[in-house]
């Protein structure tokens, strides 16, 4: 066979492979990555720490910043540096509130914690301004003021108009989406959901996390029992640790791709916390 003939044959084979898709440039769907990162689960506080959390604010730091937001907002509303008691109360409530954004990131778990503390909300329930009378237009103006925006929370779950800060939300959100689409997660999810249906509960069809369906007409007791059932199923299967490890792996991929950007973000978060701390000290809150 001459070299020309060989070349023609190879080209023909390559063409055939290309046409049949074997040499598709995008390739077949990529297999999920091996688990290369682990999440840290703190059962005493039902807290899940994932790799991206290192680049945002901690729960304590979020509370500090939100307490300072109350003061800055009130000063903007009243046009005075003097603080009313309602503002001090709101700031102290923020400090007392430790909203763990990651409590129920992967559904209910840690039944012992939940039985003691309930399904605490993942976000602050303190109203901005507390009991201060706030004109809507003025309130909007104050929320978009430079002083207020310089105290925006940076974490995985707080949406703001700060583009840089939103990268953390974006990366963690993408990692979460990849996690729930991961066949290993779905297998775990199916095990937990089977446990729940065995216990007589129906599943939430409107959530990617599925889990127990909480009905509006249930009493607080019924809701808590259902949430505990989900937590017990998750605990018995070690669902949360295994699922969080999958998410940690996707987050680690994001960190590897954007580390410099994330380090800058962490510095920004630290500056905001420092600024908030100064405001709280000057206001006599801490």
């Amino acid at each position, binding site marked *: 066979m001459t070299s020309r003939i060989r070349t023609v044959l190879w080209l023909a084979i390559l063409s055939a492979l290309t046409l049949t898709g074997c040499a598709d440039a995008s390739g077949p769907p990529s297999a999920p990555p091996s688990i290369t990162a682990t999440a840290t689960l703190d059962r005493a506080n039902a807290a899940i720490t994932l790799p991206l959390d290192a680049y945002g604010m901690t729960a304590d730091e979020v509370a500090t910043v939100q307490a300072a937001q109350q003061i800055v907002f009130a000063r903007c509303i009243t046009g005075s540096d003097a603080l009313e008691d309602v503002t001090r109360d709101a700031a102290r409530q923020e400090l007392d509130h430790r909203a763990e954004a990651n409590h129920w990131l992967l559904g209910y778990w840690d039944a012992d914690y939940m039985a003691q503390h309930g399904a605490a909300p993942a976000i602050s329930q303190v109203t901005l301004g507390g009991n201060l009378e706030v004109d809507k237009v003025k309130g909007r103006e104050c929320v978009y003021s430079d002083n207020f925006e310089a105290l925006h929370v940076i974490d995985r779950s707080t949406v703001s108009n700060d583009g840089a800060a939103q990268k953390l939300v974006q990366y963690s959100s993408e990692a979460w989406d990849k996690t729930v689409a991961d066949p290993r997660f779905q297998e*775990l999810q199916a095990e937990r959901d089977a446990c729940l249906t065995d216990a007589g509960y129906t599943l939430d069809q409107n959530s990617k996390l599925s889990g127990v369906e909480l009905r509006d007409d249930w009493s607080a007791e019924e809701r808590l029992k259902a949430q505990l059932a989900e937590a017990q199923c998750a605990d018995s299967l070690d669902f949360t640790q295994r699922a969080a490890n999958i998410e940690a792996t996707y987050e680690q991929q994001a960190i590897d791709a954007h580390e410099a950007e994330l380090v800058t973000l962490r510095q920004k978060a630290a500056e905001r916390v420092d600024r908030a701390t100064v405001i709280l000290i000057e206001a006599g809150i801490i």
Partner: protein
Amino acid sequence: MSGKGRRLAPWIIGALLVGAAGGAAAVAITHPAVDTSAIDNASQNLWVTAEVVEKPVRGAYAISGQLSEPTLAAVSPLTGSGSTGDSASETAPTTAAQGKETGDEAGGAATGSLPQAVRRVVSATVLTAGESVHWGDCLGEVSGRPVFAFPPSAPLFRDLVFGSSGSDVAALQAVLAEAGLFDLAPTGQFGPVTLAAVKALYQRHGYDLPEPVAGRPGMLLGDTAIVPVDGAKVVSTAPLGAEITAEQPLLTVETAPARVMFRADVLQAEAFAVGAAVSVKFGSGDPLPSAVTAVSAFQAAASSNPAGYDVTVAVPEGVDVAAVAGLPVVVTEAAAAPTGPAVPLAALRRDDQGATYVLVPAAGGATAGPPSRVDVVVVGQDAGWAVIVENPALPVGGVVVVSGQ
């Protein structure tokens, strides 16, 4: 080297070789060759194993409680204007006196309520400390009038007479039923059956049926007293001749005994149903046996208490409540927690996918082959052990590899 030297060299070398061979032989004799393959094999397959045992899924719940003093209530006859304040019943037979205005009759011990000016003095005692009081019982005699026990739900505000109607009459009928004197469903109508029952109640205790309104017999408001709990225990009674005042009630009753209370969360509550055996420890004292006597309805979370149920436990017998007041109290469930097969936590392994498993040695031991993997589901952990869902491959008494593989 000289020629002599050259001749000696082969001999010297030969002697050294012979010496070396002899030494080697001597070493071989005194230190025979060791077969190290067994050690090698043992070091490669030296497994530490543990037996699968039956263990509680969790440790016993131990919850801090609070000692509550007994709840006491003062019981004295009710006072009022003595007016019947009602219209005649539609169904009760009418009397000539029906509709007449009621008037207090001075000193009317038998025919009307005591006027406010009359001293209320204990004129006879009926009960003693330690006795139980039930609704419908006679509690004593005040200024010559008997005093009957009524429940707090009875809306008493007037004398009840033949022809009266209302919820207070229904309450009277319920009390008469408790006393075994009225066997109809309460109607709220004071008719002849009710009248006969009221008459029997008075007569049972040696009193004539009063006539709160002339010509209309019935029950005087002043002949009644509210006892908060049916079966309340008498703690003290006013002595004969004592004037009934706010400070000196006719009776003091215990409506709830001293008890230990605590909040159990929803998970813990399963271990503390009514009747469940518990032990109660006051301070550094010994745990004492007791039982759960009541469990409240679901309570929302409040301050430091989780959402759950308020559990009441009887103070163990023989405890001097005054002596232990103020001491920390811990209530521990007495029944053992559910059990299941358990393996040491150190035996649990996790694969790349996060699945948990243990290794089971091959039959015949380490030399018989590699251990086999058995996936497990952990349902509880306590004291270094993981309780797992029952698995035919891991029976109690079976063996798992803890380390060495």
